[in-house]
């Protein structure tokens, strides 16, 4: 058993690691790479894996659940509310029109109306996993096409609930509703109680997400044990998915709602960071399972009908979407991206078709054929997207390039501030006073909480990690300010930023001269030694109290700061030679003393002769 598991893991991961980079290199998305990997290791090519594909599929569907949670995290409730028009407009019309048309066609080629309706509902679905993953990978989630695609998928996910309820009603013989996988606790309840329980669970998710989860996460974060936070994030997703299956709701929907509720929380980035790899791997597994499940025997038996059906369905779905897009006044290029992207049949059709098969609404042969067709449409999608991007779109918008680029820019801040203690918060407040918003990262859960109460956008996380910087938009930002006082953290942050985001200009806080030297070693140009300005301001006030003129002392302080900076650079050059360093250091201090005592004691002016009439007087004598 143990070695079996290891062998399987070896096969899956090996195939993925071989195929995905290859697909990427060829300019295709990771989705196609995973699908091809699945086909290769599947029973019809290499035969490494066989019948267990179905189980893997169930496990891997959890990747879709996580994907929806992460997408929810990116969408605040207010943004979701802005999407309501596209969800109801584009989303609902896509589903209804496709369902009606497909059902009608199925009916006219000789199926009874029950089977036609079941097929219509199944084929109207598109693949959330494939489409959203591709959009995310190409940074198109925030474009017009991205928003509309997302709305369509979201509406479909909502529609799953009534579909599962309607399907049993279509069965010829009153077959018992036995859904082995999803044991619903509601079966024995009367109808009104069932409805009430469903509402109750949804309300529970809302309340938990809003009031309990943030405290829970804060509590876990305070322990300072990283893997515990990862476990908590996973627990959150698994828990919600479990609650949802209890009442036969779509777990993907449930986690999506939870994600939206947590989108405003300070733990958003940290949750994203922790769940992202799990989501990626599970989705990959899911795509491989789809690839492996394609029954190539059916292809050999009647290739024409499978190919014909696949092409027919894709064209029909694409045309329906194109027309809807046109009605909704989408720009032509965005409309194409959306329509071709959503033209496949989604993974959810596997579930509904298996279900319809169990209910004997359609025959096993027909089910097998449809399954093969669905999988083929999914494999075709990345190819379609590729053809669209490489050949159709370039022709379409040669003249409209600028518009499209502007559209796809995400609203991200140009400045990132790492560390939001007193030092960083002053920088942030000053920027904000001048109308510049910064993305703020901090790793102190208590402080994050407090600052958020005061109305700042602060995110919790370890700033030296690539993924947190990435999700904070480091790739699009201009300046990274480190206001962190811990020197080793700063060094790590610099290394990460330099390696992955060479676009960033680094402005770094240094605790003292010696930290500053190390930063100079790393060729950091913008170094800010803390305290120097404040100490000098204090010095100026002391001198004033001793009776010196304010403006003279002010100029003296500015001069002093400049000399101090210069002396630091000179000292830096000789700092490796210890003896030299000590003597040079003494020299520098002496030099500074000279400057100040000459300026203040000899003549209460500075070394220049501004407003100084002494020499003029001397010459007139």
């Amino acid at each position, binding site marked *: 058993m143990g070695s079996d598991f290891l062998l399987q893991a070896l096969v899956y991961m090996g195939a993925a690691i071989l195929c995905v980079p290859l697909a990427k290199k060829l300019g295709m998305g990771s989705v196609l790479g995973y699908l091809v990997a699945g086909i290769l290791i599947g029973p019809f090519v290499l035969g490494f894996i066989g019948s267990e594909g179905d189980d893997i599929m169930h496990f891997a569907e959890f990747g879709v659940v996580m994907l929806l949670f992460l997408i929810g995290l990116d969408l605040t409730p207010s943004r979701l509310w802005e999407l309501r028009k596209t969800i109801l407009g584009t989303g609902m019309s896509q589903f209804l029109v496709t369902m009606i048309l497909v059902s009608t066609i199925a009916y006219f080629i000789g199926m009874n109306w029950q089977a036609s309706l079941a097929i219509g509902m199944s084929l109207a679905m598109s693949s959330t996993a494939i489409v959203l993953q591709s959009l995310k990978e190409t940074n198109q989630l925030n474009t017009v096409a991205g928003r509309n695609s997302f709305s369509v998928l979201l509406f479909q996910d909502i529609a799953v609930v009534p579909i599962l309820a309607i399907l049993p009603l279509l069965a010829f013989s009153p077959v018992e509703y036995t859904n082995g996988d999803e044991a619903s606790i509601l079966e024995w309840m009367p109808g009104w109680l069932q409805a009430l329980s469903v509402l109750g669970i949804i309300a529970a998710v809302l309340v938990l997400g809003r009031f309990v989860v943030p405290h829970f996460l804060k509590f876990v974060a305070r322990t300072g044990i990283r893997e515990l936070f990862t476990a908590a994030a996973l627990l959150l997703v698994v828990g919600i998915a479990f609650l949802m299956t209890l009442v036969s709701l779509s777990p993907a929907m449930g986690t999506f709602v939870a994600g939206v509720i947590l989108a405003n929380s300070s733990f958003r980035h940290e949750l994203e960071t922790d769940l992202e790899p799990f989501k990626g791997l599970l989705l990959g597994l899911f795509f491989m399972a789809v690839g492996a499940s394609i029954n190539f025997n059916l292809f050999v038996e009647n290739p024409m009908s499978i190919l014909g059906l696949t092409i027919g369905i894709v064209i029909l779905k694409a045309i329906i979407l194109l027309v809807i897009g046109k009605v909704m006044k989408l720009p032509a290029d965005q409309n194409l991206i959306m329509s071709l992207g959503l033209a496949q049949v989604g993974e959810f059709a596997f579930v509904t078709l298996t279900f319809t098969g169990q209910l004997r609404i359609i025959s096993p042969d027909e089910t097998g054929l449809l399954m093969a067709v669905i999988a083929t449409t999914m494999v075709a999608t990345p190819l379609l997207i590729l053809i669209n991007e490489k050949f159709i779109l370039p022709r379409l918008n040669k003249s409209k390039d600028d518009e499209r680029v502007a559209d796809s820019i995400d609203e991200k801040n140009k400045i990132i501030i790492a560390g939001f203690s007193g030092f960083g918060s002053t920088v942030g407040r000053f920027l904000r006073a001048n109308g510049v918003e910064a993305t703020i990262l901090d790793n102190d859960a208590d402080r994050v909480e407090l600052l958020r109460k005061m109305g700042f956008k602060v995110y919790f996380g370890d700033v030296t990690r690539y993924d947190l910087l990435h999700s904070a938009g480091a790739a699009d930002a201009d300046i990274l300010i480190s206001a962190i006082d811990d020197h080793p953290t700063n060094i790590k942050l610099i290394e990460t930023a330099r390696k992955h985001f060479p676009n960033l200009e680094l402005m770094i806080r240094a605790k003292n001269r010696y930290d500053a030297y190390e930063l100079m070693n790393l060729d950091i140009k913008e170094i800010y030694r803390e305290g120097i300005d404040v100490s000098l301001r204090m010095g100026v006030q002391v001198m004033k109290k001793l009776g010196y003129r304010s403006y003279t002392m002010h100029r003296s302080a500015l001069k002093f700061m400049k000399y101090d900076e210069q002396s630091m650079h000179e000292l830096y050059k000789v700092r490796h030679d210890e003896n030299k360093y000590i003597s040079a250091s003494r020299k520098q201090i002496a030099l500074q003393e000279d400057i100040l005592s000459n300026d203040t004691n000899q003549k209460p002016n500075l070394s*220049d*002769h*501004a407003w100084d009439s002494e*020499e003029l007087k001397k*010459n007139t004598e």
Partner: protein
Amino acid sequence: MRTILILFAHPRFEHSVVNRALVDMATGIPNVTLHDLYEQYPDYEIDIHLEQELLLAHQVVIWHHPFYWYSCPPLLKQWIDVVLEYNWAYGTKGTHLSGKYIFNAITTGGALSAYQKEGRNHYTVNELLAPFEQTAALCMMEYLPPFAVQGTHRITETELQDQATAYKKLLTYISNEKNDLEVLKENTFLNDFLIKTPQHGQ
């Protein structure tokens, strides 16, 4: 080629339309150094040594500024105070600037008619610039008449473009070593000279 140093002083440059147009024209002309004083010295701590080096490296100097309260903005006055040191710029040993040409390039909100004996401001721009003229004289510099864009509160886009082009022509004229600068002294405004000689030597 003559080298030109523009000492530009505007405390709120980002809101200035006219000076933006003039400065844009001045940048990119070879041998013209545009020195933005408010950008360089926001804390008024002028680097005297650097400024003196700059003066030595140029043959023609322009005080380019808006004409606030019949004078220059405070940082330019501070510049005059601290950079033109005794025994460097003036005084018995102060001969470093001798023979260099200098003039004011200014913008005024009021029109030319306001700067007349009968006008609202009672004095002409040239009269009001006397302190700058005398500063130049004390440093043994050759003071030229001002280049002035007047009536900026009501200036039209075409007028502004004409003036900006005139500024560019003037700088190009000056930078050519073959062109005589003494003839410039005969004008009330350097703007007039450009009108009189539409085809100047390059």
